[in-house]
């Protein structure tokens, strides 16, 4: 029985050293029933505080939290019918794995035989059935996290909250657990709220995500939309690895024609784009490393010198210095003969460029019109 959530003007402030710190700034959003919703952003953006308010572990300073239209803001954690998986796993060290997973059921006074049945079913699903009678310290990090997930799922919660559950695991395990969690979402019928600073997790697992910065949600959209149509430079550079290249550019107008000069290249602007950019003289130009192509020097939009080359397997990530001294990254499949300090040319489609406002960072153009 999944629920739909509504966060209504949710606000959290606290006083530190006599100053008021705003952790969550009038957050207002809806989460659909059964959705996998992720709050993503850098440290200190307010995502964990938001999650903890939904859990009831932090009291909201202002605003409401509604589960299926019912106001739960004043209801204590124990009665909210949520389940939570913590960043530091938080398994009870003096109880066996079986007792850990069964704890929520024991608290709800479920019958012993029923507890055993449900615990074993969950353990089977999470592939830890053979670990049931061991103590948490005997398990590896990944297994412990699975026990924690089992403990959360065993009471079939309406809302499952996960607070950076994979950050304590190594890279390979993280990738495996991502798939597991995704599979889990498909099989259980709960609304999942996930918090992470890892944009890969956010992109691969979510139905929709909210990119948070300084207590505000700067963009709420599906992963694909956030990737293709980032609302601001911050979102554009946060989502996607390696980060989008963003350079300073100058808008020049001569006669009736407008051009953007930057990064050692000059791009002409269509009248439509020029009109959209209005009175600006400076701006920020962005392009993703994957959108750039390497060509012969002089054959592309700009020339550069190859500084560094990182092999990633199929593709390489190269650091290139442009004519005006700025550095950008390009990702692609390049000839092995390509050596450092070689002169190269860079080409890209006009549609892959982004233009950002120099001060606000808002995205002004998604791709340049032909």
């Amino acid at each position: 029985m999944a629920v739909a959530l509504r966060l209504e003007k949710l606000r959290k402030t606290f006083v530190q050293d006599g100053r008021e710190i705003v952790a969550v700034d009038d957050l207002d959003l809806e989460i659909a029933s059964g959705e996998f919703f992720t709050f993503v952003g850098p440290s200190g953006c307010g995502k964990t505080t938001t999650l903890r308010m939904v859990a009831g572990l932090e009291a909201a300073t202002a605003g409401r939290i509604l589960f299926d239209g019912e106001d739960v803001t004043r209801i204590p954690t124990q009665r909210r019918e949520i389940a939570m998986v913590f960043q530091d796993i938080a398994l009870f060290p003096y109880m066996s794995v079986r007792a850990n997973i069964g704890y929520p059921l024991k608290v709800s006074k479920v019958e012993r035989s029923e507890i055993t049945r449900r615990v074993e079913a969950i353990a089977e699903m999470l592939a830890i059935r053979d670990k049931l009678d061991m103590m948490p310290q005997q398990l590896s990090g990944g297994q412990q996290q699975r026990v924690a997930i089992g403990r959360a799922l065993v009471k079939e919660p309406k809302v499952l909250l996960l607070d950076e559950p994979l950050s304590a695991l190594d890279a390979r395990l993280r990738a495996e657990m991502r798939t597991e969690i995704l599979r889990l979402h498909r099989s259980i019928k709960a609304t999942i709220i996930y918090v992470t600073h890892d944009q890969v997790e956010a992109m691969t697992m979510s139905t929709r995500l909210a990119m948070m910065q300084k207590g505000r949600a700067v963009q709420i959209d599906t992963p694909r939309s956030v990737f293709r149509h980032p609302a601001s430079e911050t979102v554009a550079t946060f989502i996607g690895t390696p980060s989008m290249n963003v350079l300073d550019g100058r808008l020049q107008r001569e006669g009736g024609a407008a051009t953007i000069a930057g990064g050692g290249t000059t791009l002409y602007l269509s009248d439509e784009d020029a009109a959209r950019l209005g009175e600006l003289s400076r701006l920020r130009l962005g392009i993703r490393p994957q959108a750039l192509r390497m060509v012969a020097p002089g054959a592309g939009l700009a020339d550069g010198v190859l500084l560094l080359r990182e092999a990633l397997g199929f593709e390489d990530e190269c650091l290139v210095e442009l004519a005006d001294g700025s550095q950008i990254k390009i990702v692609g499949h390049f000839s092995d003969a390509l050596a450092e300090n070689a002169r190269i040319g860079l080409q890209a489609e006009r549609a892959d460029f982004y233009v950002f406002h120099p001060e606000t960072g808002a995205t002004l153009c998604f791709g340049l019109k032909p």
Partner: protein
Amino acid sequence: MTAELARRWVRFTALGVGLIFIVFPLYWMILTAFTPRAFLFRPPYKLFRLDLSLENIRELLSATQFLTFMGNSLIVAAGAVVLNVVAATLAGYALSRFRFPLKQTFVAGTLWTYMFPPILLAIPLYLLLSGLGLRNSYIGLILAHVSISLPLNIWIMWQYFQIVPLSLEEAAWTSGASRLRALVEVALPSAFPGILSAAIFAFALSWNDFAFAFILQTDIRMFTLPVGLSTFVEQSAIHWGLIMASSALVSIPTFGFVFFLQRYLMSGLSIGK
């Protein structure tokens, strides 16, 4: 002989001498406890005696009120331990989890008790307990002992609860457990060594207390062991055999307590790290 070997011998010799200083009085006490009165001051004073007897112990148990004293000491110590553990656990938990005004003042205040020698506090305590009608009672003496051991025990439990991560309790709350239930089922087991340390400290302080028991208990039937045993010395002839026998018997519970629980005591002393 190498320099290393010589150093080891020096070390062991020094340790051996120190050991003799510590062990010999205990040994002599036990030896005297089993020596009949007649042989006590008659030379030669041999280090090893074969003619040991239970005469002193028999006399102790039948002719004196030793058993009454022992009983009183046990009752008072047990009461002090229970009260200490419950109060220190709740106070330590509150200090570690809640924010409230004057917290620092409270914490500093609890340490004030240790600025004064107990005998100085005994007189005001006597007046206070008399006013409450608790003079010469078990409760009164228990409260007096608790007033000395509780502050430090609160500190100990506070430190232990700080080690328990809050996320453990939060995991219990999100599993539906109330705050109290989470405290008992999740936080306490992790803080258990602290409880044992607090119990040992409370027991030792109560068992060995002379000042408060001497001033507060006026009836010989309510005397605890330290006070009761001091009466042996008031008699015209000091019966050393009896005193040594009683000392030996009195030290057994404390010795047993600490011996079996010493590892918890050691961990309790090092939690500050």
